């Protein structure tokens, strides 16, 4: 199998090549099929790798040496260890599903050749990134996915918004890339080596923990990861990136570009372990981003933007885990997130597509008539995202991260952030869900999805539920397959003592439920317009709710009481105010941070940059340089004119000049 390792990124690459070279000969329909086949081939190759024992024994393949300059000998080579295996499985799997989904979703588009070319290339890039066994190849694929995201986000390039979004994504991530590149140079100049494994060996051998070089390196690499994964402060591109087609968003958010940063840190974790300060910085970034993303999502009205902020927030959890040293858990969350986020995006895409490109959740709610499958799969995704206890994959992965956070430095604080994020997550996603699917529009619809769209939704829905069961929470009975399997490569997460863990777990499992409840409340208040007490809302008679209350009252009495208590609190306005405050904060976040501070700072920077460029052009280029040339020319012209004036045709002047010459020459002799 290891000779065939190249097939994993190679198959989609080949697909892309076929599409770009022969695409003109194929009919539109076949383009999609070629692309899907390529993605499927990659997936199959991954499966084969599993079967061939990659899970137990890392695989290596070296194709050729890319460039040979002294010690600088990056190869085009792949290595497949467990970390990579997990990643390629997720990426190729989700990628395949997105491809399938695209068949129907993009069927109407005219420019499918470009779409499938970049989609395949994107997949290839991501797989290459995961498989790369040296930093330079990793950088190559790193850039490649940046490029493809640029092209795909800006797919509808006629809309300036779209094109701008693509460019923004490319440029912002490129800033991170430059940082990564510098990190690579630093490593190379220290160790004259680019291969990952060799680098880690020498780094751990030669650098002391906390040494300056290690910190610098880790910081530079972190810069790259932050850019790609849209973490604070480089998150600005991601919400705009929603301008692309939904499958692209799904791919982007679920499996590929945003997780690349996570993967990078997980891959280079030995370097981060050498720099505890930076590791803590990763944690802090993660924690802040969680709250930031979630709060921002709370105030969105654009369906996909909610999901986008949610991605930011969720990747924040992964960073949190990474910072705490729980690499395996980060990866776990990455995997589950890939499933449920892809599910959310795809079902949202289905909804939006069925509603003639309507993005506003209120309008979507008013339109109604969404395909039931989309609704159900969105619900499952939302549940998984909010981490509904026990039955969803999201619960297992997020809960573990929450638990492990406690034992990190400043753990309780981080935990508070994460937990608060979890609460908000549930609120915003269910708010969206309720608004869209339980809006005033006609509820039940018979509209069915095309098969190629339905299948991925079903698969992902299934995975969003069951994929969590392979790793039960710490201290619980049940399998702990994941962390055990990855222990050799990534180490084990540290958990606090069992009692604390249990307590934390209980709180964590309650948070989503509370969040869902709050979402309901919030929604009602929103629907009425102004803040209204919950009773009024209930009293307006929403049969559905009443029915729920009636059926579930016996089983969930305690819960109901709690709910009422919460209601009471709300009525007393405490929480209301808090929520309002928080909403305001979210708006400030959006307005202030997004459009305000960061956007403005970026805009200012851009403007300043442009102004500087113009000054350069006007001042230096036109002013100094052109002026000095012009002055020179004018001076020469002046000299010419003055001398030319002496050629006035007067005989005696000519004779005079001759005599002056004589006087001068003889004068020289005298002197």
């Amino acid at each position: 199998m290891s000779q065939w390792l190249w097939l994993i990124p190679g198959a989609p690459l080949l697909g892309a090549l076929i599409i770009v070279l022969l695409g003109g000969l194929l009919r539109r329909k076949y383009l999609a099929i070629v692309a899907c086949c390529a993605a499927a081939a990659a997936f199959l190759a991954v499966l084969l790798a599993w079967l061939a024992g990659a899970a137990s024994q890392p695989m290596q393949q070296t194709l050729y040496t890319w460039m040979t300059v002294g010690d600088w000998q990056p190869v085009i080579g792949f290595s497949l260890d467990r970390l990579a295996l997990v990643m390629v499985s997720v990426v190729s799997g989700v990628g395949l599903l997105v491809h399938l989904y695209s068949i129907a979703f993009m069927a109407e588009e005219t420019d499918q050749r470009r779409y499938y070319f970049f989609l395949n290339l994107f997949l290839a890039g991501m797989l290459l990134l995961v498989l790369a066994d040296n930093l330079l190849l990793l950088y190559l694929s790193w850039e490649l996915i940046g490029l493809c995201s640029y092209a795909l986000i800006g797919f509808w390039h006629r809309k300036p918004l779209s094109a701008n979004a693509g460019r923004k994504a490319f440029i912002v991530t490129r800033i991170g890339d430059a940082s990564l590149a510098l990190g690579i140079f630093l490593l190379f100049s220290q160790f004259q080596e680019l291969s990952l494994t060799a680098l880690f060996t020498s780094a751990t051998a030669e650098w002391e923990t906390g040494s300056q070089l290690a910190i610098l390196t880790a910081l530079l690499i972190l810069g790259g990861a932050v850019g790609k994964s849209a973490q604070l402060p480089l998150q600005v591109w991601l919400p705009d990136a929603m301008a692309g087609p939904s499958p692209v968003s799904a791919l982007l958010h679920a499996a590929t570009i945003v997780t690349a940063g996570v993967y990078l840190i997980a891959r280079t974790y030995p370097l981060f372990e050498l720099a505890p300060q930076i590791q803590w910085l990763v944690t802090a970034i993660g924690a802040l981003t969680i709250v930031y993303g979630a709060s921002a999502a709370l105030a969105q009205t654009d369906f996909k933007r909610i999901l986008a902020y949610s991605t930011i927030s969720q990747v924040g959890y992964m960073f949190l885990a990474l910072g705490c040293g729980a690499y395996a858990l980060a990866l776990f969350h990455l995997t589950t997130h890939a499933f449920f986020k892809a599910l959310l995006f795809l079902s949202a895409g289905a909804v939006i597509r069925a509603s003639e490109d309507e993005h506003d959740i209120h309008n979507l709610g008013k339109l109604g008539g969404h395909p039931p499958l989309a609704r159900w799969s969105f619900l499952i995704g939302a549940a998984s995202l909010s981490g509904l206890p026990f039955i969803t994959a999201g619960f297992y992965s997020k809960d573990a991260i929450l638990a492990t956070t406690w034992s990190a430095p400043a753990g309780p604080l981080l935990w508070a952030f994460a937990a608060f994020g979890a609460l908000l997550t549930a609120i915003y996603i269910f708010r969206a869900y309720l608004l869209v699917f339980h809006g005033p529009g006609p509820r039940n619809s018979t509209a069915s999805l095309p098969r190629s769209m339905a299948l991925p939704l079903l698969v992902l829905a299934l995975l969003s539920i069951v994929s969590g069961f392979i790793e039960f929470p710490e201290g619980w009975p049940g399998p702990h397959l994941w962390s055990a399997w990855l222990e050799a490569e990534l180490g084990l997460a540290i958990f606090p003592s069992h009692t604390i863990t249990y307590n934390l777990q209980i709180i964590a499992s309650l948070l989503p439920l509370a969040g869902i409840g709050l979402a309901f409340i919030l929604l009602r208040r929103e629907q009425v317009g102004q803040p209204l007490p919950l009773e009024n809302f209930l009293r307006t008679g929403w049969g559905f709710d009443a029915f729920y209350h009636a059926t579930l009252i016996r089983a969930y009495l305690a819960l109901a009481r709690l709910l009422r208590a919460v209601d009471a609190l709300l009525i007393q306005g405490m929480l209301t105010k808090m929520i309002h405050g928080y909403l305001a904060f979210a708006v400030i976040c959006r307005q202030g941070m997004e459009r305000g501070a960061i956007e403005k700072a970026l805009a200012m920077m851009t403007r300043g940059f442009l102004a500087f460029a113009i000054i350069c052009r006007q001042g230096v280029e036109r002013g100094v340089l052109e002026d000095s040339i012009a002055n020179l020319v004018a001076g020469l012209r002046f000299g010419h004119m003055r001398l030319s004036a002496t050629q006035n045709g007067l005989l005696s002047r000519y004779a005079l000049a001759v005599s002056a010459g004589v006087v001068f020459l003889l004068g020289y002799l005298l002197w």
Partner: protein
Amino acid sequence: MRSTDLISLAPFFLLISGGLTVLMLGIWPQRVSTRSLTAVTMAFLLLSAVATLFWKTPFEMSSMLVIDDMSRLFTLLFMLSAAAIVTISYRYAPTRNEIREEYLSLILFATLGMTMLVTSRNLVSAFVGLEILAVPLYALIAWKREQSAIEGGIKYAVLAGFAAAFFLYGVALAYASAGTLDLVALGSVTTDERLLLSVAVILMLVGIGFKLALVPFHMWAPDIYQAAPAPITALFASIAKIAVLMFLIRLLCLQLQHIWEALLPLLWILAVISMIAGNLLALHQQNLKRLLAYSSIAHLGYILVALAAGTALGRDAAIYYALTYALMNLGVFAVVAAFSLPHQDRQDLKEYRGLGRHYPVLGIAMGVCLLALAGLPPTAGFVAKLLAFGAAIEAGHIMLAIIAVINTALAFYYYLRILVVLYSEEKREQNVTQPSQGTSAIVVVVSLLLVGLGTFPERMLMIIGTF
């Protein structure tokens, strides 16, 4: 007189008898056609050119003339160029009816003057040679007898006389300093009279500088270039100047070396101001002939850069440059003559617009000559400049070399300007007569020579190196 004397003098006699023959044919009762007169002139010029080949060198003629390889080379150049000028004149429209025995004989006499100048080793013979060169030119410049032509003639006559007075005064003072007019004898002047001799040389330098149009003795040049018919401009822009220059080289570099060394700073200054003033004056000049006059001022400046080095390399460089310079100017003015309008030369640059496209041979030749003037490889102009700058650098005159180099760059501007005008798009103009085959042949030969001397200068350098 011995037989060797006769052989050595044969070219001179041939020139004189050629002049007389032409004159006699001209007053022959039956009208002899201009064509046959031209043919006779050419025959005599070529014969005397052949005669120079029989010279046994080195040889001295009664301490007046010295016949060596250098004089042979340049005598040949003068004869052949004069033949070329006669050819150009034959079909030259503005003076069509005026080319008769007087014109041709005057050219022959002028050639004699140049030949005397390069061969003389006595100041008297040099002076007489200078005047034999000058006096025919007075008339030749004014040949068309229009107002501007006569104005040019008067200006040249007066100013050349003025300069000749300085030259002669210098000769007299040189005589006063040593009691001899022989250059070799002057070369061994003792220290006492050195100062007087220096004054004499400086005064002679004024006369020579005038002929060479060095700044500040240059002011006549543009006026006269403009006034004279193009073939005559070719004559005194190329070979006449070179004859004087060769005399200067013989005077300073070969015989009066000690004086030369004392005067090097002066040459330095003259070189610098000639280059700068020449190029500046040419920069925006609209009149092509005046422009070429200014450019030749600058070129003499470059030659002085080489001479100012005061070394053997400098001398060789100057000689090579002189040779190339003569060829380049001959070519350029041949083209100007070929492009002339029926009654006068084209003066304004605008009148040359697009001509290079319609007359490819002339256009390309003009291009080659101009690029050679500019000093671009692979033309001889480049090798000449290379040698000249090399000489300056070898002598440690880095500053001089840099000034020369910047001037060269400046000069590119106006040479390219001419070229662009020649090749720019313009409607076809009708009133140019198709250039004669003779002229075409001459410009082709000159261009080939320029390129040949640029690509394979070795042989010529070897010859010059033995002087």
